[in-house]
């Protein structure tokens, strides 16, 4: 409440206006900095030229194909990773022996940077979708798996004992006790995996040259089409923001009943 005296709502100004002021200021800066010679125009074109390049891009079929390729690689990779992560997480998490056995391996494999697999992906799949999928799946899988493991560990032992004392079958125990407890964690895992998957999809395209927005960025860079390059980067940023927003709203809506029970799990 100490803050109330320093910046009450009257003195703070309209939050929506302020929220618009930030991006507007940034755009203005990018417009003016090259024009008054603060940065070299060849390196950072004015915002208006980037905007124009974006419009031009949006008029081409290549752009939309690339966008589609990126998004489908993202979605497919994410779906595979989520399916594998959830199944593996539940199996490992609900069998104590498996959990103890795999803990060290999971801890070892998880921090391996997914980009270490780039050369391997290139050899196995060349510049196909397969390369992108491999990296996306690898990176996203761990996010889901770890969250599901947290979730399964969070199951109240009393609830589990209760289910056992009523002679629930193993399947019913998973369906009615384990799954509802783990569900919020699954969503957190999906949200985290969704952003990681986009990063890896674009990275694979950029570095390996698999089809998609990342490759278009590399092409624009190689052909010194700097405004186009910036325009495409803006598109990837917007995609990232949209995916974050979507995942967060989805998570909040689906888990409205659960939020009060559980604090955010540390990343």
């Amino acid at each position, binding site marked *: *409440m*100490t*803050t109330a005296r320093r*910046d009450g709502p009257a003195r*703070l100004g309209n*939050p929506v206006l*302020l*929220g618009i*002021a*930030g*991006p507007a*200021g*940034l755009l203005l800066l990018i417009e003016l900095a090259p024009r008054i010679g603060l*940065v070299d125009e060849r*390196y*950072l074109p004015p915002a208006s030229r980037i905007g124009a390049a974006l419009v031009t891009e949006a008029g081409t079929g290549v752009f939309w194909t690339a966008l589609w390729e990126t998004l489908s690689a993202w979605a497919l990779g994410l779906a595979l990773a989520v399916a594998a992560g959830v199944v593996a997480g539940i199996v490992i998490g609900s069998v104590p022996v498996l959990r*103890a*056995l*795999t*803990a*060290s*391996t999971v*801890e*070892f*494999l998880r*921090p*391996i*940077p*997914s*980009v*270490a*697999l*780039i*050369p*391997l992906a290139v*050899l*196995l799949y060349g510049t196909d979708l397969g390369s992108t999928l491999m990296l996306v799946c690898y990176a996203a899988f761990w996010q889901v798996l770890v969250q599901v493991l947290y979730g399964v560990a969070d199951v109240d032992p009393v609830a589990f004992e209760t289910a056992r004392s009523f002679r629930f079958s193993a399947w019913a125990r998973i369906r009615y006790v384990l799954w509802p407890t783990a569900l919020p964690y699954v969503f957190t895992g999906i949200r985290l995996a969704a952003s990681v998957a*986009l*990063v890896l999809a*674009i*990275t694979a395209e*950029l*570095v390996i040259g698999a089809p998609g927005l*990342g490759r278009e*960025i*590399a092409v624009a860079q190689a052909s010194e089409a*700097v405004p186009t*390059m*910036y325009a*495409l*980067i803006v598109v*990837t*940023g*917007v*995609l*990232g*923001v949209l995916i*974050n927003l979507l995942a967060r709203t989805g998570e909040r809506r689906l888990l409205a009943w659960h939020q009060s029970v559980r604090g955010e799990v*540390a*990343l």
Partner: protein
Amino acid sequence: MNVLKRTALALALPFVLFAGWWVLSADSENFYSPPLSAILTAFGDTWTLDRIRADVLPSLLRLFAGFLLAAVLGVAAGVAIGLNRRLRAVAEPVLEFFRAVPPPVLVPVIMLFAGIGDAMKVIVIVFGCVWPILLNTVEGVRAVDGVVLETARSYGVTGPARITHVILPSASPQIAAGLRQALSIAIILMVISEMFAASNGLGFTIVQFQRGFEIPEMWSGIILLGMLGFGLSLLFRLAERRALRWYEGLRAAQRSG
């Protein structure tokens, strides 16, 4: 007994996997997956002290320089933004956008400005790492307990002391979470910036092996990168556990109370 059992459990699966890989790949004719024995021989031959000094060390130096710079910038800016509501309202949409941009696309942009030298790689790492640190710091600063702030104020703990003794320690668990995310981004960016344009470094060397179809050497590089990632995250966790001992204790006390 318990320790022994735990160690056995921890080592069992890695051992089985390792043995499995060894046996299954022993007579491998497949060009892309050479026998593990060949990879290990290549590992010893490839990663000599000279090689480590020439390729691994520069990579690590870039990584640390970038990570530390990003940490200082991110925490400083995060505290400033977290403490000022108006600044936060202005900056937050911009920050959310920058965080959402996949960090590797920064490589071509920063190459324009900074060429292909060490500066480029460090700047790429700083640019990619700073956002999670910054945003987590903002969250941490915002979440400082009201009673804590009032206590500090009524006991005259103000100015710089307020930041070092109250705001930063209170936000440190979130800051640590941001640093942990940033560390894995830093490793990724280190490798990618070297794959793009470099004359030395781990990423560069591994790509060279791949392009030269020196498959066992390439595998050994991947393994080294994995070990590096694992080692750094282990180091980070040890440091974190030391620095946040109070937080773990507090949480344990809250759970049991």
